[in-house]
């Protein structure tokens, strides 16, 4: 039923603004799904997810503006983010919580600085505009509504893949690593490999989302992939429900739409946002997803 509502959305709202907002929300959801692998399931804090998002976007933009066919960009993006995730993952595998957090923050900052100062290639702080859109054999989605359906499909695939991984041995290894690395090692789990894979898969999700972002919004600049964005992605994961696939999507959509709806609050918006995150963490650490499933349970038992 939910699915029908989602698919009917463009017919109801028509306008560009809400649809574009939803498109961005769905892209965020894919990134957050990626973040969930490393952070939600494997317990590895990752403040570098926004950097992977940006790397995917910039790789795509630079490639298509240089004349490469669009079909190459998802592959190029994956290549770049996998390399970057290995570069980030290898030194950090031995690190614990706070050190890991700081390292991923540092990674994100270094990537951002490179983008800002490598002006001939990345356009620097002005960003890159007039990025060519998605084009396969001459066909591509035109307008926000067609992108909307494309993104729904991509998001659905991303969620399905995530679910499959969750129920695979890799997924179990991830959860085991999060709960206790020592116990996991003793049960035969290669925690090093698991952590690295979690990083990589998460980075691939973000990189592909970045590819789609560049090809649909068609303008990118470093400020969309900054450290603040990394924090926002984290809060989407937490507020939505860490470890839950539905939670990732709920969190991403909620925290993409909410700021827009509450813009009238002006400066107070960020104050309330911060307080809201704290309240959710303290009162409902399972996020909105856990609240939703609890409500469903109560409704079910009430009948």
């Amino acid at each position, binding site marked *: 039923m939910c699915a029908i509502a989602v698919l009917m959305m463009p017919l109801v709202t028509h306008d560009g603004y809400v649809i574009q907002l939803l498109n961005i929300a769905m892209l965020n959801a894919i990134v957050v799904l990626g973040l969930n692998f490393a952070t939600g399931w494997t317990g590895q*804090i990752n403040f570098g997810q926004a950097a992977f998002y940006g790397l995917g976007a910039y790789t795509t933009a630079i490639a298509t503006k240089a004349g490469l066919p669009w079909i190459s960009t998802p592959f190029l993006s994956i290549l770049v983010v996998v390399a970057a995730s290995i570069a980030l993952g290898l*030194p950090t595998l031995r690190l614990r919580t706070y050190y890991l957090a*700081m390292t991923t923050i540092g*990674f994100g900052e270094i990537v951002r600085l490179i983008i800002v100062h490598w002006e001939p290639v990345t356009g620097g702080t002005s960003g890159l505009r007039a990025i060519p859109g998605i084009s396969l054999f001459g066909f591509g989605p035109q307008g926000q509504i067609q992108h909307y359906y494309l993104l729904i499909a991509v998001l659905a695939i991303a969620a399905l893949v995530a679910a499959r991984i969750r129920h695979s041995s890799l997924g179990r290894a991830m959860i085991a690593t999060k709960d206790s690395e020592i116990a996991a090692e003793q049960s035969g789990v290669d925690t090093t490999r698991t952590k690295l894979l979690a990083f990589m898969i998460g980075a691939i999700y973000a990189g592909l989302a970045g590819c789609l972002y560049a090809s649909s919004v068609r303008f990118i600049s470093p400020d969309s992939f900054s450290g603040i964005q990394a924090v926002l992605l984290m809060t989407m994961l937490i507020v939505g429900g860490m470890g839950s696939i539905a939670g990732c999507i709920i969190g991403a959509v909620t925290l993409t739409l909410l700021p827009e709806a509450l813009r009238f609050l002006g400066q107070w918006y960020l104050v309330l946002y911060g307080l809201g995150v704290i309240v959710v963490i303290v009162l409902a650490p399972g996020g909105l997803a856990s609240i939703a499933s609890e409500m469903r349970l109560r409704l079910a038992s009430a009948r």
Partner: protein
Amino acid sequence: MGQLVVNGLSLGSIYALVALGLLLIFNTVQIVNFAQGQLLMLGAFIGISGAVTHELPVATAWIITAVAMAFVGIVFMVLVYFPLRGRPPFLVILTTIAMGIVLENLALIIWGPLPVSMPSPVHGAPLRFAGVVISMHQIFIFVTLAVVLLLQFLLLTKTRFGILMQATAQDLHTARLVGIPVNRTIAVAFAFGAILSGIAGLLVAPIFLAEPTMGGSLGLKGFVVSVIGGFGNMPGAVIGGLFLGLIETFGARYISSNFRDAYAFIVMIAVLVAWPRGLFGEKSSEKV
């Protein structure tokens, strides 16, 4: 080049003070407070409210700020530490980050975005020798750092209370079982941690001016220093801070000013790769 050393060290002293505040809290409750930079900012603005808006003598403003920051620290503890006891560190990190966002934006609403200055507690012409200029305020920064270190060392090792704090840090549960007033020591840790950052803010305002977003970058450097020095280690924090100040300044001068912020992270990552527990190692348990 001597000038670079002086400026690097005075900047590093600020970083060290932020790190010391972080460490005090971490050592007691195993929480890294990602809002430490915003506490620095609060200290600066409270000081300015006293010294500039209400035209009190600077020394009085400092005392008022210290008292206010102690209060802020305790409120912080109530809002952040108590509700999140026992929760995974990851959630605590996010909570403190969220607190930082709240504080920064409240400051923007209260004090506005324009940068404001504050007079230094010391006056006088700068010292000049061998082509190097040292301002009275920079000397004051070094002296303050030394005094803080000494006081903290004395407090932790020579006073009964300090020893209680160390016991609490080592093993909270046992400490409680043994009858140590654990909550009180935690409150003191938060209070002093906040005061330390507040002092850093008071030191920063006269030279770097105060504006609500000043906490982000300074706080971040403070964390980097804590990581480099190894959590749980006071001398590590100070040496790490001074070291970072020098690296940033020399790096900006001789390598490239564009990547100044990156040097901090590159050094940090390099140190961590070689010593996963920081240069001087942590004292505390596996949990981190």
